[in-house]
Every structure is written in C-alpha cells, then in structure tokens.
C-alpha cells in the first residue's frame, strides 16, 4: 500500500514537472538546448562578479536562452562586442518571462548599480518604464517598443529591409511559387517582416505567394519544425521563418527544399538548404549607446536604425544561389545601405486589393510600427 502511494506521488510529481516544463511554451525545448549554452557559458569564464568601482556595468535582459542561435543569441553577440571597451563590464539574465518577473529582474539590476540596462523584448516595455521612474540615474534602453522617458530610450532595427532582400532570393529560387513562412505571433514586428519578404519576392517574381503559419511560440524547435513541415506539405519549396529556433531550417533540408534563416547566420543548421538569413548586428548600436553614456552625451530618443548603419544585414549566400540572383540582391542591398529605403514604397495593396500606399507614396514609420494587415500575395490571417 505505502509503496503504491509513494509510487503514485512520484508519478504525479514527474507528471507535474513535465507539465510545468510544457506549460510555458518556450521553456519546453529550452532545457534540451541548454547543454550547448552551458558549455558556452563555461568557456566564457564566469567573470563579471561585483565589478570594480570605476567600471561601468552594462546589463542585458533576454527573453530566451542565448544558446539558441536566435534572437537572444544575436543580442548576446552584441553584448560580447562591448567586451573590448575599456572600463565596461557586461552581464545578462536570460529566459526572463515578459510578465511580473521582468520588473523584478530589471529592478534588481538597477539596484545593483548597473549604469545602462538593455531590455531586449517588447514585453519588457512597461516594466522598464516603471523601474526607470525609480532609478533616474540609470539609463534604460528598451528594444522594439515605443514608450520613452528622460532616462529611457527605445530602439529597434529595420530588419524588414533584410527580410525584403531574403524575399528576393526566395522569390528567385522557388519553382512552385509557394513560399512558406513560419511565424511566431501576429504582432506588427512579425507582420511587417512577412510583408517585406512578400514584397521582395514579388519584386523578382510577381507570381510568388507567401503562406503563413502561426506557431504562437518564439522558441520551440519541435513545434516550429512541424509548422514548417505543414507548409512543405502544401507545396512550399522555400521556408522562411520568424522564429528563434532553427527547426524550420532542418525541416526544409530534410524535405530537400530551400530555407531562409533569421537572427543569425543559420547555415550551420541546414547547409544544403540555407539560401541566406536576415541577421542582426546589434553590436554597432550597443557600442554607440555605451560610448554616448560614457561621454555623458546620451539623450533619450527612439532609434530605428537601418541597413545604412549596419544594424541589419543578410548572411552570406548559400552555394546554390546563382550569381545573377546574388548580383541583383546585392544591388538592392547597396541601395538600402546607401539609405534609399523603397521597401514599402507604393503602390502597396493589401490582401483585399485595397491600396494602402499609392504610387509615389511610402508607408510612414508610424504605420509600419502598428502594421496589422498583410500585403497582396500573402495567404493567411493576421490573428
């Protein structure tokens, strides 16, 4: 009897643990993937203990584990780019949920005397604002939101420019004219990226259509891979993604299709299918902010840097991308890098065929930031 009860308790506990792991979406796979992350952390040496008085502490808050080759990985590359700066030490907290926990962690950082705190996900906006009010001498930088304060700036990059270029590559390479797009959540940032990708593809291939599947996860390799498979099954032969795991890349390679990565160069995960990736270079921006704070010239602002400043880029082309496609895309890239952004230049039609920007017009930034509709040629719903 008693053993039975003990076994029952154990079974229930195991079940509960499994559930707890599955409960919060992204956490499920996080543990599996943690091994490489831990290994990396090891090599990095656990240095940033209480820093010397003179050193300026710069903190980062990530929404997912850094070892994921994804969004937080890209931000962490940016953090590491600060390592060479004299008198600057950095530290980070990863996998911070965007709820009440975020506020506590941001406050803890500020209370520990961090001088600059980068909160790198949209959901940290209100907590950052709240804590910024309590620590007027700390500089807070919030990524991908719109609220600012005298000591809190907002920043993001025009990754849609890179998406547009990857769309051109995908549109050139597709044979079925169906491009699959595994997307996280129907929020403006993601929708904007899908639209830019579709416009890029249509630029070189008017027949190309983009099919969207929402996973409602940022980081869940299994779910995201499955979503990619479902797109491959309906005839997509290029898979693009707005996800932080390389799951979709693997699905594409297994099916012999092509793939377009995101966040960082994902070629290592699917060398046979990887055409290119839309990538972040956060380091240039982080160095800029930290320099300004050190020099005492920092002022709160909303920055939305583009390819002209080098904050976004595309990864090197895979060997299967023909020279003429590469040249065409690089020419478009050169224009963007020169500051000529025509991604959302009219005419832009939405899914219903209604004109959202007439010829000669360009969709203004404010509308891009709140984009909740798809352009013509995208198959899927924005909810």
């Amino acid at each position, binding site marked *: 009897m008693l053993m039975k009860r003990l076994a029952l308790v154990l079974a229930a506990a195991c079940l509960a643990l499994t559930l707890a792991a599955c409960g919060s979406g992204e956490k499920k796979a996080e543990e599996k993937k*943690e091994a490489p992350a831990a290994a990396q952390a090891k090599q990095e040496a656990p240095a940033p203990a209480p820093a010397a008085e003179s050193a300026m502490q710069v903190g980062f808050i990530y929404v997912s584990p850094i070892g994921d080759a994804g969004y937080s990985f890209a931000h962490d590359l940016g953090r590491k780019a600060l390592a060479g700066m004299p008198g600057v030490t950095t530290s980070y907290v990863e996998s911070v949920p965007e709820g009440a926990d975020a506020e506590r962690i941001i406050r803890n950082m500020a209370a520990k005397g961090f001088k600059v705190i980068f909160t790198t996900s949209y959901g940290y906006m209100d907590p950052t604002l709240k804590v910024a009010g309590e620590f007027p001498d700390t500089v807070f930088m919030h990524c991908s939101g719109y609220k600012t304060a005298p000591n809190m700036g907002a920043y993001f990059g025009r990754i849609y420019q890179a998406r547009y270029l990857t769309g051109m590559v995908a549109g050139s390479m597709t044979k079925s004219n169906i491009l699959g797009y595994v997307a996280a959540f129907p929020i403006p940032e993601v929708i904007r990226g899908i639209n830019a990708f579709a416009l890029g593809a249509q630029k070189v291939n008017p027949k190309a259509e983009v099919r969207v599947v929402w996973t409602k996860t940022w980081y869940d390799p299994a779910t995201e891979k499955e979503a990619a498979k479902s797109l491959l099954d309906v005839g997509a032969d290029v898979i693009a993604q707005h996800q932080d795991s390389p799951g979709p890349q693997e699905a594409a390679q297994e099916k012999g299709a092509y793939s377009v990565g995101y966040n960082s160069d994902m070629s290592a995960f699917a060398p046979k299918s990887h055409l290119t990736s839309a990538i972040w270079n956060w380091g240039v921006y982080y160095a800029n902010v930290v320099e300004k704070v050190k020099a005492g010239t920092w002022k709160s602002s909303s920055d939305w840097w583009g390819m002209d400043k080098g904050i976004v880029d595309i990864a090197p082309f895979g060997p299967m991308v023909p020279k003429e496609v590469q040249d065409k895309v690089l020419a478009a890239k050169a224009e963007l890098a020169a500051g000529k952004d025509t991604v959302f230049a009219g005419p832009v039609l939405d899914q219903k065929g209604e004109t959202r920007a007439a010829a000669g017009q360009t969709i203004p930034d404010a509308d891009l930031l709140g984009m909740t509709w798809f352009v013509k040629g995208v198959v899927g719903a924005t909810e």
Partner: protein
Amino acid sequence: MFGLTAHKRTEPPGWGSVCIFPAALALALFLGLGLLALTGRPPLAVLGALLSGAFGSVRAVEETLLKTAPIFLCSLGVAATFRIKVWNIGAEGQYALGAVGGTAVALAFPGLPASVLLPLMFLGAALAGALWAAIPALLRQRLAVNEIITTLMLNYLGILFLDWLVYGPWKDPASHGFPMTALFAPGAVLPRIPGTRLHWGLPLCAALGLGLWFFLSRTRLGFELKASGEGRRTATYARMPYDALVLLVMGLCGALAGWAGLIETSAGLGRLQPTVMAGYGFTAIVVAWLARLRPLAIAMAAFLLAALRVGVENLMLDFSVPAAFGRILEGLILLCVLAGQFFTTFTLRRSKPLAPNPAPEPAPKPTGEAA
C-alpha cells in the same frame, strides 16, 4: 540491496521528521552547487548570492513574498482537491479564467472606486475560476469522465480563450497591435501596502491559508472531505454527500487559482496580457505534493520555491549561470525531498547474513505488503 533491507517503521521517526526535510534540501543544494563548482564557479560565493538574492535585503524579501502569492494560492486549491483524491491538474486553466473574469469586471466598470471595483473583480475571478473547475467535476459525476484528462485539456482551452480575448475583442487600440488590454483604471489595480512593494493580496493569502487550515482540520465538513478521500463508497456509507463535496473542492480550487490569476493581472501587470501565464498552475502540483497537502507546509514550500526562483536570478547576473540551472536545482530539490519522504515511513537495516550466497528468493525490495 547493498546488504540493506527496508523495514516499515512502526512509529514515526521522532527526530527524523524534523531533520529529513532540511537534510534533503541540503543534499540538493550540495549537488547543485557541486555542479557549478565543476564549471569553475566558487560554490560558497554562489550560495551567498543565491541567499542574498532571495533574502538579502528588504527589497529581496518583498520580491520573494510577491512571487510566493500566486504559487501559494494555486497550491492551496490543488491540495484541497487532492485531499479528496480528485486529481485536478487544471489550476493553470482556472488561473487563466480568474484573470479573465477579474479583467472583465475591470474593463466593464472602469469608473467605480477601488473599494467597490476590487471586491467585484475578486468576485468575478472567483466565479469564473470556480465555474471552469466545475465543468470537469460535473463531467466526472454525470458521465464518469476521468478528471485528469478534462482538467488538463481545459487548461489549454482556458489559455486559448485568454489569448483570443487579448488578441481580439479586448485588444487595446493604442497597443500598436500587440496583444494586451488597455492599462487598468487606477481603481482596478490592487493597491500596495504603504511603505512597501507588497500588495494587499499577501495578507489575503495569509488569511486564506489560515482559513483553509481551520476548515480542513477543525470543522465537520473538513473532516468529511478527508474521509471522502477514501472513495465514494466509504463516503456514501458514512452518509456524506460525496458529489457535493467534490464540487465544493473543485469550486474552491477554481476560486483560489482564479484569485492568483487576478492578483498577477491586477497587481503584477496592471493589464491582461498573455504573459500573465507563468505556469503557476503546474508548479502548484509540485508544491502541493512537497508539502504533503498541508496548508501551512504549502505556505512554507511556496515561499521556499519562490525564494529559489528569485535567488537564482541573482546567480544569473553575478555568475553568468544559465537559466536552466534554476530548473535543475528545482528538480534536484524535488527528487531529494521525495526520496527523503521514504525515510519517514521506512527504515533501513542491515540484512541478516543468511548464507554465504545470497538466496535467489524474494528480492529484499521494500514492499508495502511486507508490513
């Protein structure tokens, strides 16, 4: 095994029950910190950072207490249903519905003063959570549907319902398309206790914990609940209203989990958004078992777990410990404590040397029948 046999204790271990839990905790910490030591992090400094992150300052203790509240409420509810052997793993969904119910009231009457609006929100959250929990209870009674399945499935339905609301009808037009309601009116935000960061949900938790303890151990209905845990037949034989009792504990759990959801929404975020779901409903199952379903032990276990989660954040900051370490430590603690509970019912003695060769007869495994 190892020349040891397990014997069932004839009486509870006097000193043991006091020592076993701390010993298990110490063992888990030792293993966890040993793991970090292998990666070159100084274990004692790490332990110090862990403790100071959770208890090292007034602010740290406040944060730990704030984190305790939702875990405690969900665990309390779950434990109540487990006592009657209703395997309700649906606190997560009931938490979601509580958040939804409270938010519905907050959005419907933004103009009301806090003294009226907050009680209404608590009522709304309790009703929504309790009704959600009543579904599996009724299905179990009327159609004999296994409540483990239904409560689990209703979790996902509840979370999706919450998602649908904040992506759809309740989405703040000013949110740039992001899934969240507008910020609550000031009257709908659970106020802070002056001079602290704590909100009034914490005294409420304390009162509820004490109330439930009194109810379960000092009232007739509480006794009936415990007795009904032996099963429907026992309860019916003793003329206890078994079905009503099941409905009661499920409703109670739904209301408590619902309040946890409401508190996190109102005091934690000040608006409803999908990230209010932090897995507390699942954590609650672990906490309830760790505390062996006793309300006061649940308070302690919830507090310690919250302390661990808050303290580990400090490690991440000071020692670049990966986020998964917190999970590993939680798992180690759970395993050690459960293993430790073995010793409260069994004792190990050296096997009698029967023959030079161990006989192939009944393996000396600890079986309940032996007693």
